[in-house]
């Protein structure tokens, strides 16, 4: 458990160092995610890596534990926002309306693009 958490933190730490060192416009943990994915894939290829947190259900179990209550982790930041709702004072209704319309449009356009592309791909593979 501790070794698995250490591995996750190590990936995050390496991600933060890479992002800051190269001034990448993305969060450090996203690079950490890629690193952990590469480590898991490498373990399948090279048997000698399957030890410590990488054997059994080690890092997998710890990760599932962290993700089981992903919603909880957004609450502290969300509460900060509740306290800043007065920032919306002047244009509040307009901003909320715009964000709502935009999120619905974005959801629909994204899901439609995904489905159309996936259908085109299936058709392309169907014909030799």
């Amino acid at each position, binding site marked *: 458990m501790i070794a698995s958490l250490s591995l996750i933190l190590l*990936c995050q730490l390496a991600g933060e160092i890479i992002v800051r060192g190269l001034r990448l416009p993305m*969060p450090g943990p996203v690079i950490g995610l890629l690193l952990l994915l590469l480590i898991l*894939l490498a373990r399948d290829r090279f048997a000698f890596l399957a030890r410590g947190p990488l054997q059994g259900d080690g890092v997998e179990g710890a990760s599932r534990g962290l*993700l089981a209550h992903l919603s909880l982790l*957004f609450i502290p930041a969300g509460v900060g926002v509740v*306290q800043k*709702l007065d920032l919306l004072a002047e244009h509040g209704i307009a901003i909320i309306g715009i964000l709502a319309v*935009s999120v619905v449009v974005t959801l629909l356009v*994204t899901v439609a693009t995904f489905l159309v592309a996936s259908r085109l791909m299936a058709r392309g593979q169907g014909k030799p």
Partner: protein
Amino acid sequence: MSENPFSLWVYLSQSPLLWLTVTLSTYAIADGVSLATHRHPFANPVLHSMWIIGVLLLLTGTSYTTYFAGAQFVHFLLGPATVALAVPLYENRKVVAAAILPMLAALVVGSVTAIVSVVALAEVAGLPRAVILSLAPKSVTAGVAMGISESLRADPSLTAVSVVLTGIMGAVIVTPLMNRTGIIDFRARGFAVGLAAHGIGTARAFQVDAVAGVFAGIAMSLNALVTSLLVPLAVTLLMR
């Protein structure tokens, strides 16, 4: 008991214990209600925990700084949880690899839509320039969105507010919207909510379906990158 009834409160209000306990127990109750209603979209545990704790802080006159001293232990886990998304991604790698092209297409089109729709609507509504700039990156995770906002000399706090509002609205609306339009492909549903409503949408996706959660996590991560490249470009093109 101490002689002064307030000394207990003074102690509690200065230790992280109280607000950490409040955060966890409020969530435990909100999540219990969410489970009891079979994950009804309006029983979103993030939404309800947020306002309940917000009201508690208001009633007790507690500052956000004091609250965060306790809640930071929970907040910190966001980073490791993002790294942990590698595991469901790894476990579903075959499904993901088979959907690379649809994902890339949806990423580009969706990311542009998220930015253009909000900027265009805000221009039509006649909002001031600084407000429009602050709203533009609202579909990406708060840390990245605030960075973009700062680089545009907009208001990062207003950006944070719009990010969380977008996340909550997306997480609440996605299930009824997708059911109404008859979309049953959970890869597409997950990808859309991760792109439009970042982490809060991803948390919702994991509640509904594991594959949806995986695709939401990918969309969230990729959109953070694409949006930070696109927003500066979009605002120069769209705003006079």
